């Protein structure tokens, strides 16, 4: 076939026209895999932040604020927002720092250190989300119950009084609901970041193996 021969001739002629990467450029490429995972962690953290902010903005209409005020939760809500955003921003900054650091890394041991750091940051972040969600929902539950009972007028108090066993049962049920709720939050974050963390871990193991050989 003439055409393919023509192509082959041209192909050969261009042998010397390809870019030439230096030793260092190729060397750096070997570590880029982890950096793309870390980049994804950073991106996901931002998307997640935007998602929750959007949800908050969408749900926080006047009715919501009135309800919050009625339950005397206004100060608490505002303060928890401020603290929550501050901590979230801090984590996003940390994710960004990890990403920058890993992109500029060029030796194995500091790359391994960076991978460990990144995994740690993500784990702290998940722990923070769980703890803060736990605290916020516990405080809210307390306020809701407390002010609900204050605002309700009851004629026959004895009919609404709990015995000790009833109180215990009530506490157990509330605790169970908390555990299930936090468990779901945890599961969500495990899915969101778990895959990336696993891949990072695999890269880490690979590096470790090569280091030992």
């Amino acid at each position, binding site marked *: *076939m003439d*055409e*393919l021969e*023509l*192509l*082959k001739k*041209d*192909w050969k*002629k*261009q*042998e010397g*026209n*390809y*870019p*030439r*990467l*230096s*030793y260092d450029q*190729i*060397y750096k*490429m*070997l570590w*880029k*895999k982890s950096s793309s995972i870390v980049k994804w962690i950073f991106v996901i953290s931002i998307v997640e932040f935007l998602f929750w902010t959007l949800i908050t903005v969408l749900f926080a209409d006047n009715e919501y604020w009135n309800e919050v005020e009625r339950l005397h939760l206004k100060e608490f809500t505002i303060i928890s927002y401020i603290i929550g955003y501050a901590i979230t921003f801090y984590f996003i900054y940390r994710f960004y720092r990890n990403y920058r650091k890993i992109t500029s890394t060029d030796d*194995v041991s500091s790359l391994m250190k960076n991978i460990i750091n990144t995994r740690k940051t993500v784990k702290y972040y998940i722990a923070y989300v769980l703890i803060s969600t736990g605290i916020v929902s516990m405080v809210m539950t307390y306020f809701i119950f407390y002010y609900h009972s204050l605002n309700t007028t009851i004629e026959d108090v004895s009919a609404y009084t709990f015995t000790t066993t009833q109180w215990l049962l009530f506490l157990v049920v509330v605790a169970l609901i908390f555990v299930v709720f936090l468990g779901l939050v945890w599961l969500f974050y495990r899915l969101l970041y778990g895959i990336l963390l696993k891949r990072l871990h695999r890269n880490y193991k*690979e590096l470790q*193996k*090569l*280091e*030992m*050989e």
Partner: protein
Amino acid sequence: MKKELEHKFVTNLERHQNIVHKICRIYTNDQAAHNDLFQEITIQLWKAYPKFRGDAKFSTWMYRVALNTAITLYRKKKRGIQTTDYDSVHFRIEAEEYDPAAEHQLKLLYSAVKQLNDIEKALVFLYLEDKNYKEISETMGISEVNARVKMNRVKTKLKNILNP
């Protein structure tokens, strides 16, 4: 020990990098995609390197791993129909004696190759690299007869693309 392995690998890859560039050229349409594929191939080669025991030539081994990477990646991406850009052929230089007719013909040829599927591209690439059927069959992991049959089909397909 590890440093030594790394050094050996990078030195080898640096020496033979043209193979990877050429595969990138067949499989990608622009510089950014070229660089991405180059990097991906580099990573895959590095991952496979500990298994490379030197019983084959480094370049032969490279052909196999690099082509496999390109084929796998290309498969993942090929969800929509790829349109081929007429001027997508990068790194082209003008021939010393500029012949517009031949130049035009070459452009058509390159764009015809871009329309082939992942496996067909690999075959054309190995053909352009002057590999014989035995080498092609080893690189692609198919029998020699199969390589021959497939190659003929690719030639017919190219002809059909060029003269519809």
